[in-house]
């Protein structure tokens, strides 16, 4: 296996040192790294070296909606975005609610080879919210599922949620809740507030999210289980999670890049590229989510990468699908929202986009420190570049990025997956023999 | 057709073709010609075409009333907005629609004298004739203009002309009226001396 010498990069934005990647591991750091003169040199001067990013929240759409994304195209997008591990959400067709389906997804990911694909198992059969799926069998399968979610739908029934939280303890699983009270959001189209009142779009009240989070943290406390809150989007949700952590409840929370950067004002043009679940909130909510991420109330950034075919967005607002792509812009958005605002360091970015997601997902060989002997899952970022997002240039099979036309900072220069480069010079490294 | 007052002269200083006195004499003469041609003011209706045809029609009517005792100038005169009958709407910025106000007796059986400031292509008068046919059936329609500058694009001629003014197509004729512009004058702009 070819050795690579990443020369002169700043590790986690801190000390500058050469890093030798060999046989899938970090073989040497510092002066001894350049002893191997046969290594391919990857210039890293002025760049930041991060652990490979880990996404707990990716919709790869396969099986079922290969017109929007495949595991192949989605993991290529992940590699370009600096990710070495993605968690594939369960709302595929068929739903990832059996060992057979999660193993299929896991194998397709392994065969594609662009990023480690960790399937998320459905909490309930068919995401229907009534009967627990075979969580234990999925956990014991080759896919070794540890994260369970009905994402896209809320596990609404409090009894079902309680049972799921309890049951997952047997195999150290975590229930990742999509917090959305369905009755309060039956016809909801966007955040309920000043903008929805004016646009005449049915409102999605913040309380519909907050009420479920409040209930779930209390359930998690009651049964002593761990709970993960997906795409938390309101100031009230941040407050509730902060309170729960203060009580010692085993809860972790996620924010998406778009909820760190975009507001409901963007809906004014009725362009469905801004239609997402949970909806874009107000500037005050964005500020609260940023503050929550900075102070550790929110543990991770998850992309909620949700590709959709063009016809599902090229239509009137009410007819459009919810969701935005995010794998190829996530790191840039976090840099813009958190690093350039002085709220977080690159080491913090490594924490919320790599170390902690891997801990929550129980992924042993991802999200590891950049140290000798650790798996060489690495991402090399040029923070000085500014680029305009062009949907057509992305590797994801869908065009629905809300950042289209926006200038964002930072670019992933190289990504290493278990010692092998998936991205070099900002471009995918195609492999002979690999196919879609 | 009147040229907007705010249009800048395209070259050369404006030349005054008619002064206030000239204009007043021309209107008086036109008034007499109208009475002569129609054997008096009976059945006569003067319709001014906005913008400057409207005050001109009022002045003509007042002039007729001075000559013909017992004639009510107000009952004689009306406004005819032709905007919605123009054939050039799609080639111009949106024109605002003006008001049409007819004398109480309507147009049926009347002799209508259309009044405008400048006769140029004839298209405004074509529009006016269409508008009149939607409003009633006059016995006859005649045309009075302050200035005829030539360059007709349609087979239309004026019955009463204040001043025949040969122009080149690139020149502009501006009619100023005290009612709308603060003074009476006819200017030729863009003229080469």
């Amino acid at each position, binding site marked *: 296996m070819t050795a690579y010498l990443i020369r002169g990069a700043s590790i986690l934005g801190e000390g500058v040192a050469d890093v030798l990647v060999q046989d899938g591991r970090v073989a040497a750091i510092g002066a001894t790294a350049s002893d191997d003169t046969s290594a391919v040199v990857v210039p890293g001067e002025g760049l930041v070296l991060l652990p490979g990013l880990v996404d707990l929240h990716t919709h790869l759409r396969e099986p079922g909606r290969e017109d929007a994304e495949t595991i192949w195209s989605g993991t290529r997008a992940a590699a370009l975005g600096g990710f070495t591990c993605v968690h594939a959400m369960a709302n595929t067709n068929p739903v990832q609610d059996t060992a057979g389906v999660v193993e299929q997804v896991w194998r397709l990911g392994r065969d594609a080879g662009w990023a480690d694909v960790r399937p998320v198992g459905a909490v309930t059969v068919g995401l229907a919210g009534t009967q627990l799926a075979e969580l234990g069998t999925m956990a014991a399968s080759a896919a070794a599922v540890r994260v369970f979610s009905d994402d896209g739908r809320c596990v609404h029934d409090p009894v079902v949620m309680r049972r799921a939280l309890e049951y997952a303890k047997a195999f150290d699983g975590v229930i990742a809740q999509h917090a959305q009270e369905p009755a309060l959001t039956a016809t909801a*189209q966007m955040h*309920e*507030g*000043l*903008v*929805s*009142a*004016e*646009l*005449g*779009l*049915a*409102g999605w*009240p913040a309380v519909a999210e907050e009420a479920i989070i409040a209930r779930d943290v209390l359930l998690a406390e009651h049964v002593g289980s761990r709970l993960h809150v997906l795409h938390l989007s309101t100031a009230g949700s941040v407050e509730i999670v902060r309170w729960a952590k203060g009580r010692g409840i085993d809860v972790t929370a996620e924010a998406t890049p778009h909820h760190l950067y975009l507001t409901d004002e963007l809906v*004014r*043009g*009725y*362009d469905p590229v801004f239609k997402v679940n949970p909806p874009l909130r107000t500037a005050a909510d964005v500020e609260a989510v940023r503050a929550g991420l900075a102070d550790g109330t929110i543990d991770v950034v998850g992309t909620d990468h949700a590709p959709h075919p063009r*016809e599902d967005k*090229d*239509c*009137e*607002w*009410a*007819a459009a699908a919810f969701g935005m792509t995010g794998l190829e812009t996530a790191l840039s958005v976090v840099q813009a929202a958190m690093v350039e605002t002085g709220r977080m360091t690159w080491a913090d970015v490594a924490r919320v986009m790599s170390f902690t997601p891997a801990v929550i997902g129980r992924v042993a060989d991802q999200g590891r420190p950049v140290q000798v002997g650790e798996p060489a899952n690495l991402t090399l970022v040029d923070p000085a570049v500014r680029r305009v997002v062009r949907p057509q240039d992305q590797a994801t099979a869908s065009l629905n990025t809300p950042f289209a036309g926006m200038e964002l900072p930072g670019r992933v220069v190289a990504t290493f997956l278990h010692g092998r480069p998936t991205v070099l010079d900002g471009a995918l490294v195609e492999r002979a023999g690999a196919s879609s | 057709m009147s040229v907007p007052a705010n249009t800048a002269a395209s070259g050369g200083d404006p030349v005054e073709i008619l002064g206030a006195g000239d204009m007043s004499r021309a209107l008086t003469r036109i008034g007499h010609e109208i009475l002569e041609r129609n054997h008096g003011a009976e059945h006569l209706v003067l319709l001014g075409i906005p913008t400057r045809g409207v005050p001109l029609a009022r002045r003509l009517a007042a002039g007729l009333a001075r000559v013909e005792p017992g004639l009510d100038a107000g009952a004689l005169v009306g406004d005819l*907005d032709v*905007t*919605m*009958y123009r054939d050039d*709407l*799609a*080639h*111009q*910025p*949106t*024109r*605002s*629609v*003006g*008001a*049409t106000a007819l004398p109480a007796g309507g147009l049926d059986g009347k002799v209508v004298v259309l009044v405008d400031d400048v006769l140029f292509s004839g298209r405004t008068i074509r529009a006016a004739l*269409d508008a009149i046919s*939607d*409003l009633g059936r006059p016995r006859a329609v005649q045309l009075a203009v302050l200035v005829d500058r030539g360059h007709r694009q349609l087979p239309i001629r004026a019955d009463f002309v204040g001043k025949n003014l040969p122009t080149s197509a690139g020149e502009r004729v501006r009619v100023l009226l005290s009612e709308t512009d603060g003074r009476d004058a006819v200017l030729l702009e863009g003229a080469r001396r």
Partner: protein
Amino acid sequence: MKHLLSAGDLDRAQAVTILDTAAAMAATQERQIKKLPTLRGRTVVNLFFEDSTRTRISFETAAKRLSADVINFSAKGSSVSKGESLKDTAQTLQAMGADAVVIRHHASGAPHRLAHAGWTAGAVVNAGDGTHQHPTQALLDAYTLRRHLVGLRGGTDPVGHDLAGLHVAIVGDVLHSRVARSNVQLLHTLGARVTLVAPPTLVPVGVESWTADVSYHLDDVLDQGPDAVMMLRVQRERMGGGGFFPSPWEYTRGYGLDARRLARLPEHAIVMHPGPMNRGLEISADAADADRSVVVEQVANGVAVRMAVLYLVLAGQEQPTVDGQIGASA
């Protein structure tokens, strides 16, 4: 004016121009020959995804009075109901040479998408979208208010005037009403004061940013002596389980305009309703048929206002941008 998408896009001068143009159009409609050649050769498509015979007929009459060719495209029984998208429909109409598309759609923002997504080059006139906007309804309401309550009152149109100093109460289902949204914006732009009257469940969250007062008590507002009361249609399906109010009778007791409340209005005040009316629910027969009710006149004024709007979006040369462009913020 390239499109008319929202009453909020109109400034005072534009709104007054539309009302003045409507006055000129209305004058032509008193003649024996009502048809004008103005839009000869232009094609107006009435694209109706929602049933509304009244609005469609009003636009159709307006377009025909201006000699435009009119194509009525109803979603019912067409390819639209077979799943054809708004985009495909728009592109079909574009290929047929539609100069203007008058669109009624159940989805808020559909006209905005039609105008700005690049699906059609024609002018777009919003004839009501979801619970968002119904700008021509607000314009005809403003026109009716101006005729009755400004200047000489009831006689000639007070050309050039706005609605400064008037107080209008808009009563009923504000939450779901595109008529209310358009009227709040337009009447405010024209200088009138608006009070919204509704049970709290029928007022949207976020209403505090609107240019209107809100009251939950119709009788209190009537005591303020409004110059006009505009009753909104209340849909019976809004009641019942999880509904917005307990019963039609309770609604009528609190918010219905009946003979007793009618008598409390100032003598000059007028009663308006965008139609169709639910007699006995939001308005009693006494109020609907009272002398001061201008409901029928609103319908007639609708034709003049829509003639004015079609004239202003279609008659002029297409301007690249600048001040005439409406709804340009995408």
